[in-house]
C-alpha cells in the first residue's frame, strides 16, 4: 500500500521540462528481466546540452534505465521494456526501429575503460569507419581527441595501442571514440568509478566541456560528483516492500534543489547520507 502511494507521489512530482529542450523523453512503465520487475514508473527527460545525473543506492535500476536509452539492454535476451523513449519524435522501442541504428546516434561510455586492442587512432576512427565516413579521417580523429582533452598527450603516439594508456587516459580515449561520430546524446555509466581522483577530476572537467555540444546522461554512485557536474539530478530508489527489489524514480529536479531542498522524505535521507 505504502509503495503504491509512494509511486503516485513520484509520478505527481515528475520533473517537467519544455519539450523543445528535451532530446530524449523516457517514459517507462515497467522494465522486466524475465519475471523480475526491475524498474517501474519513471519519467526521465534528458535535456539538450545539459548533464542529467542519475543517483541512488545500488540496485535501484539507474544503470538499467540508462542502458535502456540506447537499447543496450536488448543484448540481454530476457530483458523487456514497457513504455516509450521518444527521440526526435520517434519511439526507439517501436517495432520498426533497429536497435543497432539507435546506438549509432546515442553514444555510450562504460564503467570500465574498454578501448579496443587496436592503435589509439583506430580506436577513435572505429565508429567513423563503421558509418563509412568518407571525409578527412585524420581531421575527425584529431577533433575527437581534442574534445576528449587527450590530443596533446597522445598526438605523437597515435600508432600505439589504446591499451598502453593509463586508466584515466583510456577512459578519455573511450570518450573520444564515442564523440568521434558526433552522437546527439552521450550516456555515461559510472565513467569514473574505476579511476583515481586526478583522472576523475579530468573526466569531470571534460563532461562540463562536452555538454556544449552534447546532451549527457550520467549515472554516478558518487553524490558529490552529481553536485559538481549535473544540471539536473534524478534520484532513484529501490522498493523492497513487496518482496521484490524494484527500482523507481523518487524525485527529479535541478541538482541544487534536489540536494538542498529535496521534496521527498527518501531523497532527504539519501542526500544527507542516512543510507546509501
Amino acid at each position, binding site marked *: 500500500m505504502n509503495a503504491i502511494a509512494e509511486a503516485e507521489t513520484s509520478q505527481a512530482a515528475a520533473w517537467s521540462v519544455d519539450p523543445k529542450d528535451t532530446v530524449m523523453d523516457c517514459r517507462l512503465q515497467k522494465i522486466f528481466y524475465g519475471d523480475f520487475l526491475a524498474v517501474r514508473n519513471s519519467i526521465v527527460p534528458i535535456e539538450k546540452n545539459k548533464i542529467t545525473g542519475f543517483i541512488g543506492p545500488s540496485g535501484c535500476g539507474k544503470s538499467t534505465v540508462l542502458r535502456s536509452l*540506447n537499447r*543496450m539492454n536488448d*543484448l540481454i535476451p530476457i530483458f523487456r521494456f514497457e513504455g516509450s523513449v521518444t527521440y526526435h519524435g520517434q519511439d526507439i522501442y517501436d517495432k520498426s526501429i533497429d536497435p*543497432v*541504428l*539507435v*546506438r*549509432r*546516434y546515442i*553514444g*555510450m561510455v*562504460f564503467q*570500465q575503460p*574498454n*578501448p*579496443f*586492442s*587496436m*592503435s589509439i587512432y583506430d580506436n577513435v576512427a*572505429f*565508429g567513423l569507419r*563503421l*558509418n563509412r565516413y568518407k571525409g578527412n579521417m585524420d581531421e575527425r580523429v584529431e577533433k575527437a581527441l581534442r574534445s576528449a582533452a587527450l590530443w596533446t598527450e597522445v598526438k605523437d603516439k597515435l600508432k600505439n*595501442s*589504446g*591499451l*598502453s594508456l593509463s586508466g584515466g587516459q583510456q577512459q578519455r580515449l*573511450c570518450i573520444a*571514440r*564515442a564523440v568521434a*561520430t558526433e552522437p546527439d546524446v552521450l550516456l555515461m555509466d559510472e565513467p569514473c568509478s574505476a579511476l583515481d581522483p586526478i583522472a576523475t577530476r579530468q573526466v569531470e572537467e571534460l563532461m562540463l566541456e562536452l555538454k556544449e555540444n552534447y546532451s549527457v546522461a550520467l549515472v554516478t554512485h558518487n553524490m558529490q560528483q552529481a553536485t559538481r557536474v549535473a544540471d539536473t539530478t534524478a534520484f532513484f530508489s529501490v522498493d523492497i516492500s513487496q518482496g521484490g527489489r524494484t527500482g523507481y524514480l523518487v524525485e527529479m529536479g535541478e541538482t541544487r534543489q534536489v540536494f538542498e531542498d529535496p521534496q521527498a522524505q527518501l531523497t532527504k535521507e539519501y542526500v544527507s547520507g542516512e543510507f546509501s
Partner: protein
Amino acid sequence: MTGNISQAILEQDLASMPQLKGSVLEGRGLKSRIYTGITWLLAILAAFPLFSVLYMLIAKGGARINWETLTELPPSAFEVGGGIGPAIVGTGVMVGIGAAISIPIGILAAIYLAEIDPHTKLAHTARFLAKVLTGFPSILAGVFVYAALVVAMKSYSAWAGGIALAVLMLPTVILTAEEALKQVPQKMKDAAYGMGCTRAQVISKVTLPTGIPGVMTGVLLAVAGAAGESAPLLFTALFSTYFINGWEGLSEPTSSLSILIYNFSGMPYDNQIELAWTASLVLVLIILVFNILARVLGRQKF
C-alpha cells in the same frame, strides 16, 4: 655516563628482541631446500629425453644435411647419394591440404561455440565431440579416410592424406580457437555493440582481430602435430619415390617424411638408413619452426 646508560638500554633491548636469524640446518629451512632441489632435478629429467633425441638426430643425421639431400629423389637399393626432396614436398603439400580444410572449418566452428550460441545443446555436443576427437587414435583417421575415399578413388593420393590430416587437426583448431576467442573481454564487445555494431560486425571487427594471436597458436600447433603424423598417411597417401607431378599428381600415391623414415630405417642399406636419420632431423626442425612461430605469433601485438 650517558653512554653507559644507553649501552645498558641497548643490551636490554637485544635480550628482548625476537629471534629472526634463520639457520641453514634448521628443520623447515632444510626441508624447503631439499624440496626445491628435487623439483630442479625432476625438471632437468623431464627435458632430458628431448635433448638426447635432438643430440642423436644431429649426430647421426646432421652430416647429410645439404642441398642435394634436401632436393634429390631418394636412391634405389645400391645407389649412393640421393635425397628426400619428394618427401619434404609431399609432407608440405598434404599438411597444406589439411590446413586449408581444417582452419576455415575450425575457426568458424570456434566462432559458433564461443560467440554465437555457446550454451545450446548443439554447442555442448560439438564441444564434447571435438574433445573426444583430440584423443582419437590417428591410425583410425587413416582407416576412415581409406574406407571413405581411397576405396572410392581406387588410388592412394595426396588428397586422401591431406583429408586424414585435416580430421586430426580439426579438434585442436576448434578447441584452441574457441579458448582464444573466449579470452576477448566482454567489455570490449560491449563497447562495439555500444558503437552500433551488428553481431557480425562485433565478431569480424573486434572479437576475431583481438583473438587472432591465440587462434594462430592453435593453428600452428595443429600444423606441427600433423606434420609429424605417420599412421594416417600409411592408409591414405602410401609412398612414392617421385615428386608430386602437377594437379593430377595429387591423386596419386605421395611421399612423406614420416613414411620415408619408416621405410628407410628398416632397409639393410647404410645409405638409406643415413637418409632416414637426416629425414628425422628435418622433420623435427620443421615441427620446431612451427612451434616457435606459434610462440612468436601468439604474442599480443597490441
